[in-house]
């Protein structure tokens, strides 16, 4: 037993002397964001203004929402490749409802709240299918969600015949106006998209840190067998996680099509990769069990502020892709340094 206690104090000493490195490592997404803001502010006078920050935050909100759903799935040890397609499908589905639905011989124009609810159901349904495939049929998450990536995208294209719904404003005479409120309005000059993003982020953070479900999620992502033997309903957790990811993607789809007042079937293509990148930059482990909402949100801001900054200072879009890739690799590198360090001690 004496061996245990001496080793304990040695470890404590070690962590004391390396605390600065540790702080930098743990807060890396935050420090990266600060560095990005400082760098671009010095290069462009237009970058560091409240107005610009809000515009950039509005961009961040879209894949930030995807990233929060993705975080839940990654915490569970899975991956959800379908979120970009679900985003596109949700926009198309909302647009289709806004154009009126033929029921029998009459055309029904559902009110906007019903459009929103039904669209969220679409995302939840795709997530439910993903979850059931992964949890009960043991299909690898990568393959199951790759399949729904194609199916959801294909359904979106079929519904529109490849075209785009352009008029989503509704008609006062039909009582379905207000859809563009999501994308255009501001509360206290903050865009609604950013507010929705904030609300969902805070709710998810509470879910993860303060609810039994959150604890179940971390446990089953960290060690599914141990969690199951401790009474955690691991299958149910898995299904719910994919459903929540689908719902987040639908919310993002609604906000995006409202911002654009149009819904195209190809919206959100490759966004799933951006979402995964945000989660990884935020410090989550792809093996599951590690990661936070705050980290993911910071990760989303790092990607968004970086690419918008490059646009503002006039760097070619091709370079943006190169930079984003470099940032992702760097983030994963730091992740593996951090986690190999904790395992060794």
């Amino acid at each position, binding site marked *: 037993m004496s*061996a245990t206690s001496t080793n304990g104090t040695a*470890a404590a000493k070690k962590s004391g002397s390396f605390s600065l490195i540790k702080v930098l490592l743990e807060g890396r997404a935050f420090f990266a964001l600060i560095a990005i803001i400082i760098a671009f502010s010095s290069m462009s006078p237009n970058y560091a203004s409240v107005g610009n920050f809000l515009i950039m935050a509005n961009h961040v909100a879209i894949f930030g929402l995807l990233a929060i759903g993705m975080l839940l799935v990654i915490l569970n040890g899975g991956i959800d490749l379908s979120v970009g397609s679900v985003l596109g499908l949700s926009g198309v589905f909302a647009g289709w409802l806004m154009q009126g639905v033929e029921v029998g011989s009459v055309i029904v124009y559902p009110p906007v709240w019903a459009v929103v609810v039904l669209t969220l159901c679409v995302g939840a349904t795709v997530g439910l299918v993903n979850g059931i495939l992964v949890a009960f049929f043991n299909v690898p998450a990568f393959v199951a969600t790759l399949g729904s990536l194609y199916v959801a995208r294909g359904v979106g294209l079929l519904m529109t015949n490849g075209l785009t719904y352009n008029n989503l404003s509704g008609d006062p005479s039909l009582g379905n106006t207000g859809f563009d409120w999501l994308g255009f309005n501001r509360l206290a000059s903050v865009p609604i998209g950013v507010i929705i993003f904030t609300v969902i982020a805070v709710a998810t953070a509470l879910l993860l840190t303060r609810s039994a479900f959150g604890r179940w999620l*971390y446990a089953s992502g*960290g060690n599914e*067998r*141990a969690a199951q033997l401790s*009474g955690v309903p691991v299958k149910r957790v898995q299904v719910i996680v994919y459903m929540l990811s689908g719902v987040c993607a639908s919310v993002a789809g609604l906000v995006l099509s409202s911002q654009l007042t149009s819904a195209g079937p190809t919206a959100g293509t490759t966004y799933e990769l951006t979402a995964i990148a945000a989660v990884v930059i935020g410090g989550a482990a792809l093996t*599951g*069990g590690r990661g936070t909402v705050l980290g993911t949100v910071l990760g989303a801001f790092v990607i968004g502020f970086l690419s918008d900054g490059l646009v503002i200072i006039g760097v070619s879009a091709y370079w943006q892709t190169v930079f984003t890739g470099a940032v992702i690799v760097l983030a994963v590198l730091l992740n593996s340094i951090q986690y190999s360090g904790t395992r060794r001690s």
Partner: protein
Amino acid sequence: MMSPTYEETPTETPDVAEIVLAARHVTKSFGPVMALKGVNFDVHRGHVTTLFGENGAGKSTLMKILSGVQKPTTGKIILDSQPVELGSTTEAQELGICIIHQELSLAPNLTVRDNIFMGREIRGRFGVDFAEEERQVRKLMEELEEDIDPLAKVEDLRLGQQQIVEIARALSVDARILIMDEPTSALSAAEVEVLFKVIHDLKAKGVSIVYISHHLEEALTITDHAVVLRDGTMTAYAPRAEIDLEWIVCNMVGENFDLGSPPTGYDFGAPALSIKGLSVPSHTDGELAVDAMDLDVKAGEIVCIYGLMGAGRTELLECAAGRIKPVAGSVELHGHNVSKLTISDRIQSGLVLVPEDRQRDGLVQTMTVGRNLSLASIQNFTRGLFTSRRQEAEIVEDSIRDVTVKTDGPSAMIGSLSGGNQQKVVIGKMLVTDPSVIMLDEPSRGIDIGAKAEVFRILAERAREGLAVIYTTSEVSECLSIAHRIIVMRRGKISAEFSHDTTKEAIMAASGESLVH
């Protein structure tokens, strides 16, 4: 204590003619856990040296060091009186040292031939010379008197046959020193006899063999020298002529350490757990791992289930806990049938399992000590939507004190704890759910003797308060500690039942341990 113990303590400079491989002052630590504490070990040239010791005594670790799988923390390895560094298994193999692992290290998707020549394929003119490899495998199988097709996939073989393949692979290397870590655990009696014949032939060829087995009597029939390890130190050493079974058991277990005695002074309550005609399928083949078993445990009673590997103990407990579905029979808790309930429902109604493999099934390595402790009882401190931090902290603090976990605090990572303390966390996690029946599968596996005694003390205390306790073990000494009743399992059935005043020999005989001669 029996006499010839330390008379032949290994000397600093091993005799070259006698000793082919020697370990001197070898230590090995895994984080805070010391697996070996300065071990000296000699391998006799052209003889069988058997290493005895309980689970967690450090046998496998020592063998891994001798075969280059792991490096010692301190100490040296001497081969033919020259100090050597064994950086990898390949280096060890080049020096003529080969190991047959306890856990099978075969690739199940490849054929027998490919497994045997994995990493040292015979080169022909066009890539690998498969025909030559196949011919050699057939010759090996003839030698081992086994009818295994070189082109069969390993995953299609029985466990015993897989072990033969593992042995054949080691033989194909032409090793000078062959280490066999539990080579017979999955073999039939006939296969064991063939293996022993092979060992005799190898000895005649001058090969030195290191042998490890839990079947003590079986090992005694072929060994020339015996070495006993206990808690990472060598406790005894003697040639075959001077020892017997009792000497080994005495030295393995150590007589001085008291693992407790059955708690007395109270009456048992009503039957808490009743297992009726339970049959559980084996996950490896189609046979039954547990065969129509009946077992009643009363409130306050401590029952020990003893049996060899593959006797069906783990399957019995996992089925009772709801992890595997039975093919027949029922599990009743206080007279209510719980066979249809999920694992979490069974935990809620008071039936909990502490699994055998704590790394794989017991702990979530990404979480802290506190979160691991509270994992099974989250409902107890959830109010409405949210968990109560204050209540959780209380539960965790109480639990740490209760099961005496030595830790920097609830926020320490679980990996920073020693094996014994990790095990206490797994037990504590289940105890905070306030169970009425606790089942523990090998609770003493891989923890040191002090922690072992503490675990048993905690269980005995809880039994006095009315908890029904069932634990399994493969160490006879642990049967004769706190258990009121000892059940011996063999091939899925109860082969004998003893009260706590029985003898070690009687228990071992009933388990089938002394059958092979």
